[in-house]
């Protein structure tokens, strides 16, 4: 339990370093460190599926960020923060904290699953009948690819459309730039 607070503290420090540093490469590396610590946190919270996805995607995104942006654009940030943007973010932060306090007072205590409160929750069915219904020993997989496969189909569609759109936009941007020249 204490180790999770230490990891949380490290993540907050890493995020602040990523925000405050002037060098873009250092900022990207601290974002990567935050992601790796988040992966370790998922392991301590007994969620190895999410830990694997987190660490793998983190590495890939880090490589793409460094190769695609850092090696070709400006590598340092200069100038001060805008007052308007800072004010908006502080107001948003306060609103999120107020709602967060309301939400955290309602959800069950840390380590007490919500199915202990609601006996007829669907998660009870998944845990007790998952292996019999789907034949998958990994309950997470049996949920995301059998009970909730609609969600996964939606996710796959979102990824497909996002990559289609990203490829189209990136190419048209390059073309416009060339026409301008």
């Amino acid at each position, binding site marked *: 339990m204490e180790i999770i607070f230490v990891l949380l503290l490290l993540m907050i420090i890493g995020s602040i370093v990523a925000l405050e540093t002037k060098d873009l490469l250092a900022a990207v590396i601290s974002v990567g460190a935050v992601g790796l610590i988040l992966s370790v946190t998922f392991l301590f919270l007994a969620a*190895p*599926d999410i*830990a*694997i*996805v987190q660490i*793998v*995607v983190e*590495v*890939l995104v880090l*490589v*793409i960020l460094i*190769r*695609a942006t850092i*090696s*070709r654009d400006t590598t340092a940030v200069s100038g001060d923060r805008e007052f308007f943007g800072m004010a908006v973010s502080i107001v948003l932060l306060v609103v999120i904290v107020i709602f967060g306090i309301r939400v955290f007072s309602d959800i069950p205590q840390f380590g007490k699953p919500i199915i202990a409160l609601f006996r007829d929750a669907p998660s009870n069915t998944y845990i007790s009948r998952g*292996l019999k*219904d*789907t*034949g*998958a*020993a*990994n309950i*997470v*997989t*049996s949920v*995301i*690819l*059998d009970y909730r*496969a*609609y969600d*996964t*189909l939606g996710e*796959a*569609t979102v*990824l*497909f459309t996002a*990559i289609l759109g*990203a*490829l189209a936009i*990136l*190419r048209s941007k*390059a*073309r416009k730039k*060339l026409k301008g020249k």
Partner: protein
Amino acid sequence: MVGMTLIVKTVARWVKSFIFLYGIYITLYGHLTPGGGFAGGVIVACSFILLILAFGKEKALKRISKALASELDSIGALMFLIIALLGIFAGGTFFINFIQKNAPGQDFHLLSAGTIILSNIAIAVKVGSSLFMVFVILAVLRVVKKGDKLEMIQTNMRGEE
């Protein structure tokens, strides 16, 4: 010299097939151990990205070109949809696990869980090829004007031609 130094090339030559194999293992055993199609696909894409980073574009794009990655992306998405639609014809409901309903495999064995293993493979193909394509588009290829035509060319590590 194309790519990185001799040390990186030697290590990459040793490690690349193990990374690829680990991605396939994570995909195929997604219904038994932690992992699944998404993580496995990203690991497979990472093995090709390692090839690009270590050996340069030519060697990696000879094995899997951008057009092939684009086709694999669509094939993976279609495979997942076809598995879902087969549920209607075989079991009466969209996305029903018809293989497990009709011929259940032995629990805790590789050939169990019916359509889940097929869906994992489809998602791995889709995610792996699409993320590989994103890396190629963002980091390797650039659109330049040659005469009247726009062409995609390959750039080196610094983003120059």
